[in-house]
């Protein structure tokens, strides 16, 4: 039984980094891939801060601030990039972008035509409101 030590923080950082790695490799959505990369950065930040704390200096915290700056720049660029890519192919799927692959390789877009998305169910449609009903003959007489 010991008080909390560096090892605990480093293991937490490794777990966060590993989860981010799994997310980055498996998910196809470009935004989720980006957020997974950010999760990996969080794991690294935990490690830096823990090293700084257990050594008693400011180098870890200074370094994490630079990581944060780079992450902010990355987010700005990624936001513009993802939106541009979305407008070109009308999808957030990263597998649709494979123009730079090696010649002779199959397209990683293995979802093409594999499965048709479910058709939109027939939701009830409300009539337009606020339109004056057609005026026929008077139905009531005084």
């Amino acid at each position, binding site marked *: 039984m010991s008080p909390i030590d560096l090892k605990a923080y480093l293991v937490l950082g490794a777990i966060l980094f590993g989860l981010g790695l799994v997310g980055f490799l498996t998910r196809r959505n470009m935004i989720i891939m980006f957020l997974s990369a950010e999760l990996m950065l969080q794991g690294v930040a935990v490690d830096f801060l823990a090293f700084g704390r257990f050594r008693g200096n400011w180098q870890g915290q200074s370094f994490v601030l630079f990581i944060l700056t780079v992450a902010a720049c990355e987010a700005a*660029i990624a936001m513009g990039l993802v939106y541009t890519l979305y407008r070109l192919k009308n999808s957030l799927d990263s597998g649709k972008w494979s123009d730079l692959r090696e010649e002779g390789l199959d397209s990683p877009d293995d979802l093409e035509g594999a499965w048709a998305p479910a058709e939109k169910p027939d939701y009830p449609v409300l009539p337009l409101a606020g339109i004056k009903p057609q005026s026929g003959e008077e139905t009531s007489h005084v």
Partner: protein
Amino acid sequence: MKFDTWMTWTNLVLLLGWAGVFLALPRREGKLRLLISFPVLLGCLGAGLTLYFREYRFNIETLLFLFFALGAIVGGAGLVLSASPARGAMSFTMAVISTGGIFLLLAAPFVMAATIIVYAGAIIVTFLFLLMLARQNGSDLSDQESRDPLLASLAGFLFMATMTNILLDAFPGSTGAVANQLQALVKETIEIGKMNDLQALREKAGAGEGSLLSRYKAAFGGSGYWVERIETDIQKSGRFSFTQAKDLKEVKLALTGLEGIANDFLYDRNFLHPPRIKGHALSTLSGTDPSLPISEIRKDASGKPAMPAENSAFIGRSLFSDYLLSVELAGLLLLAATIGAILIAKNPSARANP
């Protein structure tokens, strides 16, 4: 590397986690697979919790660490495993806020505030906005089908297993045979240190020259950093010499030194052994001299090196002295990123025909 029961259990927990994540990764069909994955993931968390409580003393700090670490891990898993991107983004927010708590525990309130503002505030909000903009007609096929779930989850968990095994091997902590031996030795040292008769103390501590010393060395495995440290700190300084010690005070000082080294090993305070060289690149504004042994740094009540309460003031002093060039470069990077983002986000057709 020796595998003790501790490491075996840790690896089993990781294996369970891998199975759970593999089963729970979004795929088009298989409701049963998803149903199986829940107990597996919960079992992984439960087993991890048991390991944690066996390793660490139960106090408010460990409790807070556990709370925030669980939040971060569950949030991260939610990001990776949820088929809906909006839910994933919210899980990521939870992970970021929990890591903020971890940052607070690491005495970094300024970094915590900056992280929460930048991540949970700016990044998540813009990306949720982007998600809402892009996804107007229900969920997409690409969100429901993971790419190579088996290989990718295996890669991630192999990385985790490598890291945790190396860490547990490097920082054995308070468990295992070495730690038990050392704890017994420390107890004995404290008992011996209570004696006030120099002659009796000499006899008790060792009939021959420094037998307590050799037992400490044997507990540390006979060689390596810790044995070296006993030699340089205690033997070479001439303090731990029962036959030559002039007075009681000297012997007791040596005993305290030995006890301190054992405690450093047990509670992982001294694993960041600095190279014993003079001179380094950074000034003292970024912290103490890195070549200073950690035993000579002033400690706070928790046994960690003391950090001042004025966190942002001290980070500022470090940033604007040692890291001044890096700060300027970071500003340049932000400017370049702003220009680049504006350029990229322009309408592609407008860019083709300006």
